[in-house]
């Protein structure tokens, strides 16, 4: 059982963000539902006046209403908050002396991490299900109540719920690896779009440099299915529905382990595990080199392929070397406590 003192403290720390998240969910689900009910009823009335019932039949036989409601662009704001909550739970403590006070208390570090994880995950889940429940009640009480027959808890809520938990869990994992809040939030956002972003950079590299590569279709599909924001926006997993749940579990387990084994004397630095520098530095340089190449190559006309390749490599070297020196400084930086 989690110590009451811990989850109360963690909840108090994130209460403000949960209020914001609740407002986003309220706007996203119940308010959007009301607006969509009005819109749909208006369309049905116009259709009825014309003596048609195509839209009515469409709503009665498909889950179009729910899919539209769930894939609203409000995801973006929710996504940002889901990345900030772990930053406040872990990163803000690392920025101040609070983390040291907490690790000096009579608790296992795993318990400290699990308390934060549970508070975040339960808070997000309760707000999500409350807001969606409210939306369901509004729909059920309206003239459009027949669309509730098309609503499936598993089909419509499993994916957004597990994806939100996976985003939160990724933020928590970053918090267990990174030494301060701002870097934690930025790295969480970067790694959220990393699979698709990196794939785009690699594809540009392949195309511009004329490297033959087969099987792009399944690779693109796979990349799309592991890029969490795309899952939220798209909502169509084609059999990959288990991925966000697996990601949540993996991030939670690895996060707990790394939080417990991190060396707290590195708080305030970019990475808590110095061994990760070996992967991080070349990784950043390669990504920025690919980005530099892509940007530089876009200047050249598409017809002049040789010129494009030259510009690609100039851009790659320039941005790659810039990234090398900046990242080295960043890795030596300590944004932590003033002492």
């Amino acid at each position: 059982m989690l110590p009451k003192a811990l989850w109360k403290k963690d909840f108090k720390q994130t209460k403000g963000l949960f209020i914001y998240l609740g407002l986003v969910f309220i706007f996203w689900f119940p308010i959007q539902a009301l607006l969509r009910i009005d819109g749909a009823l208006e369309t049905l009335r116009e259709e009825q006046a014309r003596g048609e019932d195509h839209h009515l039949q469409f709503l009665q036989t498909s889950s179009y209403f729910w899919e539209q409601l769930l894939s609203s662009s409000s995801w973006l704001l929710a996504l940002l908050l889901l990345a900030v909550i772990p930053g406040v739970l872990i990163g803000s403590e690392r920025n101040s002396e609070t983390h040291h006070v907490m690790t000096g208390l009579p608790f296992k570090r795993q318990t400290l991490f699990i308390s934060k994880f549970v508070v975040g995950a339960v808070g997000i889940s309760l707000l999500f299900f409350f807001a969606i429940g409210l939306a369901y009640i509004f729909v059920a009480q309206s003239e459009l109540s027949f669309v509730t027959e098309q609503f499936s808890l598993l089909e419509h809520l499993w994916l957004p719920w597990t994806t939100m938990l996976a985003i939160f869990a990724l933020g928590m994992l970053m918090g267990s690896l990174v030494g301060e809040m701002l870097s934690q939030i930025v790295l969480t956002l970067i790694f959220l779009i990393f699979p698709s972003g990196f794939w785009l950079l690699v594809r540009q590299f392949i195309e511009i440099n004329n490297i033959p590569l087969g099987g792009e279709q399944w690779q693109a599909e796979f990349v799309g299915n592991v890029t969490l924001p795309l899952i939220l926006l798209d909502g169509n997993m084609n059999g990959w529905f288990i991925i966000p749940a697996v990601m949540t579990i993996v991030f939670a387990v690895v996060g707990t382990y790394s939080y417990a084994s991190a060396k707290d004397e590195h708080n305030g630095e970019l990475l808590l595990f110095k061994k990760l520098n070996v992967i991080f530095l070349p990784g950043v340089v390669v990504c920025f080199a690919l980005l530099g190449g892509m940007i530089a190559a876009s200047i050249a006309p598409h017809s002049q392929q040789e010129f494009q390749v030259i510009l690609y490599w100039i851009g790659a070297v320039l941005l790659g070397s810039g990234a090398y020196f900046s990242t080295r400084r960043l890795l030596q930086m300590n944004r932590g406590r003033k002492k």
Partner: protein
Amino acid sequence: MEVRNISKSIQETEVLCDVSFSIAPGTITGIVGRNGVGKTSLLKTMVDIFRPDEGEVRVKGESIQINPSAKQHVIFVSDVTEAFKNESVDHIVSFYREVYPSFDHAYFEELMARFDLEKIQQVKKYSKGRKALFALILAFATRADFVLLDEPTDGLDVIVKRQMMQFMVEAVAENDISILIATHRLDELETLADQIIMLKDGQVEARYELESVKMQYQKMQIVYAEQMPEEVIEKVNILQQSGRVYVCFIARADNETKQAVEKSGPLLIEELPMSLEDLFIAKLGGDRFAT
């Protein structure tokens, strides 16, 4: 509380090397050493904020590395008072009450009144000294058996500092708790500490019972007509030299050195009252201090 063979490296520099000592109940122990010698790191390692590379810390027979709940008997007060700065006094107290089952709320209220510290909505609104005082009050109110303090009187004004020192002596005498103080303020330790642990290069250089150390060493003022002979300089610890006047530090049992001094024909030999600071300079910086 027992520190067993603790070693710790930070940024590839060994800050603690095979440190071992124990703290008996009802004592005040001072940890002294020059800047960067590892005093704060040692205290943080003693509550497992910093994980030791080797060794362990045992409290009442249990290793805090294996069983962190043993830390219920220990509290560490950092010299940085930034934690929970946006929280109210009441909220912090309620948190500590839940973490430390032995937290004594009545004692907390009594100490707040004694040190004339008002309860406020955000701890960050306290002055630096008041933040430090609040942290100390909170620590003692947990009724932990071992209180580890890092530069505890930093920022306190002279009157509160005296009151706090008086309070610490009372707390040890009345409640049989143990206090470990890492500080540069040797004058304060002199009136408080039962034992002194000197750290040098991350190692325990020496450990003294303060009462006995004054029996073991003598501080001597020696005046020569010319300069102190080389053979004597090699034998004594010179704390200070002003022209032909030398202030030296000699072990009371070191008869060989005493005879060498007497044979060197000084104009005057006089014993001076010895302070902890003299011992500190002689042991950790005497050779560099003297010119």
